[in-house]
């Protein structure tokens, strides 16, 4: 991959051709984009840069906060008169930003370390993207007093709701069998998910060291809270 032009690398992803059919720069995507409204993100500019196939510009993009501002709502998909999908192109750009180690060059990109740890920890450990224990009230004040109350009483509360929290069998938040979790782990191994996780961890550890961290837990907390 190292000898290839960046624009050619991007095209290796099947989603690239689904996401871009010659953008005419009308800007409808930007006018409906929630991220463009509340941040410096602009899907029209994004596709414009990708269309230039200018490697220097693309590298700048992959190292910037810009690609991490999209919220993946895909409103751009609905409105584009050319069937372009800037939100899908974002997935392609983020993929290679991580594989090439560019994501640690931006504050927003560095947050991937925390997302990887939490989400893949939950998926491979529990079989869910989210489990109630991971929604800690001190990190989620917006969840309010109701969630604090639920969190303090998880087993009793979920039992009241008819759930099957962390128990064998069917039902809400049941324990996923080890056999099923093993299958998910083998799928992750077979399809490149472990390599992606390794890349995120490796480049994050390098960046943390460059920034003077000797404790990855502190690095996690600081990127999660936006301090670094």
């Amino acid at each position, binding site marked *: 991959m190292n000898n290839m032009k960046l624009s050619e690398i991007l095209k290796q992803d099947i989603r690239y051709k689904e996401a871009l059919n010659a953008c005419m720069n009308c800007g409808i995507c930007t006018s409906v984009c929630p991220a463009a409204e509340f941040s410096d993100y602009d899907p029209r500019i994004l596709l414009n840069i990708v269309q230039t196939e200018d490697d220097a510009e693309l590298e700048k993009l992959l190292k910037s906060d810009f690609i991490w501002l999209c919220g993946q709502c895909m409103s751009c998909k609905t409105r584009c008169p050319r069937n372009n999908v800037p939100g899908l192109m974002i997935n392609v750009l983020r993929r290679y930003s991580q594989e090439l180690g560019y994501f640690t060059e931006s504050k927003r990109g560095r947050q991937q370390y925390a997302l990887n740890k939490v989400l893949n920890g939950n998926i491979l450990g529990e079989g869910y993207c989210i489990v109630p224990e991971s929604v800690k009230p001190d990190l989620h004040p917006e969840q309010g007093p109701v969630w604090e109350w639920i969190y303090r009483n998880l087993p009793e509360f979920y039992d009241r709701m008819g759930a099957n929290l962390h128990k064998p069998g069917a039902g809400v938040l049941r324990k996923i069998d080890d056999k099923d979790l093993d299958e998910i782990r083998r799928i992750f191994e077979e*399809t490149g998910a472990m390599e992606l996780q390794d890349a995120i961890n490796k480049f994050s550890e390098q960046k943390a060291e460059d920034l003077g961290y000797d404790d990855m837990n502190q690095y996690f907390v600081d990127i999660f809270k936006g301090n670094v």
Partner: protein
Amino acid sequence: MKEPIYTVSRDYRKEIADDKYYYARSCIRQNFFPGSEVTFLRVLKENLGRDIWDDPHHTTCTGIGYHSDVVPFNTIQTVIARQFSLMTENGYENFVASCVTSFGMYIEITETWKHHPEQLEQIREYLKKATDREFMIPKNIAHTSDIVYKFRMRIAEQMKYPLVNRRTGQPLKIVDHIGCHYAKMFPDKGEGGAEFTQVLQGMIKAWGGATVDYPERRHCCGFGFRQYLVQANRGYSVSNSKKKFESMQPYEPDAILTNCPGCAMFLDRWQFVISEMHGVRYGKDNTTIPVFTYEEMAGLVLGYDPWDLGLQMHQIDPRPFLDKIGIPYDNDRMYKTKTGKMIGEYTPQQTR
């Protein structure tokens, strides 16, 4: 009961299977609205007599990880192929997802396979090698709300509490929020498309309520995956919800009805946050607006106990809405276990 006349073109109507479903649960709905999933199965089995398989062996689809870019596309395709394999193994052909983002991914992936058959073959190989499994692509893929929508008139026939203000006799005003991944990615796969979405509106009207076409009806709730999951980014999430609240405020809605489990949670929690931070509330006379999932709404009109539906999990107090309809509830049961024991301390919800 007779089905109402459609106001949308046939182009925007989708095929929804009418029985024998394989059910795939939602991560967010299970965490924040467990009562909704319990209620969905109860309504399907007890009120509608449908066959739906609740399989303990399926896992997350990994959609939140995928849209947060920490799960590769090939990986989520293969995890979803495994869900389809479980469906096939259990003898089902109709797949029903409880999560809007999962639903969007199931459609995105099966469409990708249609356009790129070589990709489908690659995923079959991955799955075979990793798990020794094979799979059939479902004949029909629906979101759980599609099923409730399909049977909304059957539910209306059994209705105990129509969505009508008991004092005035007027239909209650309900604003809907569809959830981006239901129809924005593939409009022809959502009932009514992205433009004229019918799925929640159809339920509201069938059950006696009135809908309001507020300007930002189609705007995102602001989940944004990494924009909420990372604490530093949550301004994005609350700003988008605030935009919606301000847009619906002039219509003085009695409730918000949501399609996506994440949206239900955010439109509930961000009202609380804005009220705490700025003292601003968006309902009539500076009150908050109760938020409901469609399963909760179905359960309410069918006369299920509000606390069995899980309404005590909402930060915004749902009781003013129940009072308007005249749905009875026992405040003492709200914070109790099945056996009547108090669960921890009493925690007030946000009424004003």
